[in-house]
């Protein structure tokens, strides 16, 4: 097993392994997780690699404590990450909320599998997409990235760490079992890696206010446990000092800011890949492994002479509603293949607001789409449009 923080070179890795390397390259100092298929390779690789770079790997007793431990580690000054799949994702929801409420930077990777419940432990799903947005109780906004390849698993994990530092919250990487287990070439070039380091407090102890937002609505610097700032961090509704204040006014101020600090930057956070969208009549909107499947369907459709393009979502949350809205004015329709019974399609419908047709191509899970079903859906929408 090679050593060193950044595994420079060209490698043949699966998505899980690439994700692990991304975390290490980003400077992760603590990984706390619990075994669950199909995340196991992340934990196993990190267990081997993280000690090599002086970091700590702890296999916690469950996912609840895994999420709690990475929050604690973050306040101790480390970059931290956990990884799981559906059942563990559900368990992590409460502490995800704690991380959001306390504005704690960390990364949570979900290698999605078939659900609900124990479901299909070894087979693909993409059915946690809405849960990623709404799974914890209360109002909040979240950032979620969807890799479609091992290369992206590496890159987007690093990006997740960077976004966590910038926006001060847990950032989600929503991969899936096929991307996690597929082996592909991963090129790691240290010169192309950008790391965002933690911002220290902008004022000395006594003057610094833990949650006073800057113009970007995020707090201005994060203290480290034991540096003298003597913070009070609580999941209760709190003021800018971090002190709990249980009233509607403080609630309004805090919770609207937590949402706004992400949503007002939706444009900067938007990340999509567009293929042949400019003169398309139908646009396939998809993400993760379904985007790879959709490429096949796209070529098939184009070979038939249809004007079809693809919009691949890399940042899924915040959802790029503006992009959909703009397209809805000139395309006949959207086709949304996803390995679930229709989740992101609801966002497409909402954004399109009836100005274009929206057709879901669902799949209950356990396998990727047969590209034919996507082609058939495109054909239907074209037929209905004419």
């Amino acid at each position, binding site marked *: 097993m090679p*050593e060193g923080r950044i595994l420079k070179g060209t490698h043949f890795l699966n998505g899980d392994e690439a994700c692990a390397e991304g975390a290490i390259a980003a400077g992760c*100092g*603590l990984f*706390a997780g619990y075994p669950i298929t199909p995340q196991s390779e992340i934990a196993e690789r990190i267990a081997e690699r993280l*000690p*090599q*770079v*002086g970091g*700590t790997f*702890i296999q*916690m*007793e*469950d996912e*609840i*404590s*895994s999420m*709690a*431990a*990475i*929050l*604690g*580690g*973050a*306040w*101790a*000054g*480390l970059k*931290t990450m956990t990884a799981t799949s559906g059942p563990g994702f559900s368990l992590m929801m*409460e*502490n995800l*909320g*704690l991380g959001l409420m306390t504005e704690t930077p960390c990364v949570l990777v979900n290698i999605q599998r078939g659900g609900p419940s124990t479901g299909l432990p070894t087979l693909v799903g993409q059915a946690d997409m809405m849960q990623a947005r709404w799974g914890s109780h209360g109002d909040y906004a979240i950032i979620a990235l969807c890799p479609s390849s091992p290369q992206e698993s590496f890159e987007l994990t690093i990006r997740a760490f960077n976004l966590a530092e910038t926006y001060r919250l847990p950032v989600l990487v929503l991969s899936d079992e096929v991307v996690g287990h597929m082996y592909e070439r991963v090129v790691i070039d240290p010169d192309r890696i950008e790391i965002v380091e933690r911002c220290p407090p902008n004022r000395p102890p006594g003057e610094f206010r833990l949650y006073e937002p800057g113009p970007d609505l995020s707090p201005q610097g994060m*203290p*480290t*446990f*034991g*540096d*003298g*700032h*003597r*913070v*009070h*961090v*609580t*999941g*209760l509704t709190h003021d800018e000092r971090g*002190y*709990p204040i249980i009233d509607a006014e403080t609630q309004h101020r805090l919770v609207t800011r937590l949402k706004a600090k992400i949503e007002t930057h939706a444009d900067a956070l938007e990340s999509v890949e567009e293929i042949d969208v400019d003169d398309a009549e139908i646009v396939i909107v998809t993400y993760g492994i379904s985007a790879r499947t959709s490429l096949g369907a796209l070529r098939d459709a184009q070979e038939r002479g249809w004007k079809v393009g693809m919009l691949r979502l890399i940042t899924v949350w915040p959802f790029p509603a503006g992009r959909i809205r703009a397209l809805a004015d000139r395309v006949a329709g959207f086709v949304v293949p996803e390995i679930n019974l229709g989740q992101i399609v609801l966002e497409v419908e909402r954004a399109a607001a009836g100005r274009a047709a929206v057709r879901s191509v669902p799949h209950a899970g356990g396998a990727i789409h047969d590209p034919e079903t996507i082609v058939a859906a495109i054909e239907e929408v074209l037929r209905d449009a004419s």
Partner: protein
Amino acid sequence: MPVKTKKLPVPEVLPARTHPMQGYLRVDRLPHIWCSGCGLGTALSCFTYALDELGLTCADVGVVSGIGCTGRAAGYLNLDSYHTTHGRAIPFATGLAVGQPEKKVVVFSGDGDLFAIGGNHFIHAARRNIDITVLCVNNFNYGMTGGQFGPTTPVGARGTTAPYGNSENPFNLPYLAASSGAVYVARWTTLDARRLKTAMVEAIRKPGFTFVEIISPCPTNYGRRNRLGDGLDELRYYAERSVIRHGADPKDADLYPGSEILVGRFLERERPTFLEMYEEQILQKNHSAKK
């Protein structure tokens, strides 16, 4: 018969003076929310004096708490204090301790938070010998939420969710801590304030997973529903029933209605800590940077 009038010593009246332990407290958040007669204020007070005796500054130690009356303690301490989710103070503290191994991390939480919802995390942190001190204030119920029974409520005692009396066996906390791997186990009541403070000093000073159970009155909920009187009556009860036996077998520390309250320093032993073992087994074998 002439009434003998006492001649009381006359005090000086000064403008407000600062309490000697004020440096450890967030005075802008006092007075605290705890009821008259509650032992939590005593536990908090002893804790500040323990920090003082240890010579720890506000930057040397962090406090993590869960949810409940005891959980509020974090909010009154002028340290890096983390008020986390119900039952999850210990794993949060684990992350904190791993990230800043030179600092002291203390978990300050209650019986329900630590041993019902948090039970699993307690035994694993003890098993691993994570270098944290867990101070459990045991008032035998969930006070904050109105007085439901919990995992330490004695058989037959009442709570709002045990209107006919609790039918479940409670945990013996010192026994649980000892058998899970804790390297220091003690129990005191809030009446034994001086010995409690000393136990806190010993527990915080000692590396590894250290545990102090602090038996406290809860006059508003547990005490009232079990007709124990007010806080003072509960302390008188402790005075009657407490038996100090250092080195007692934690198995003997069961509590049931009418039992003696066994207190003391039950266990102190040496075990390598989580990070020491991680260092030796994992880091060194990889010739990598030491923590």
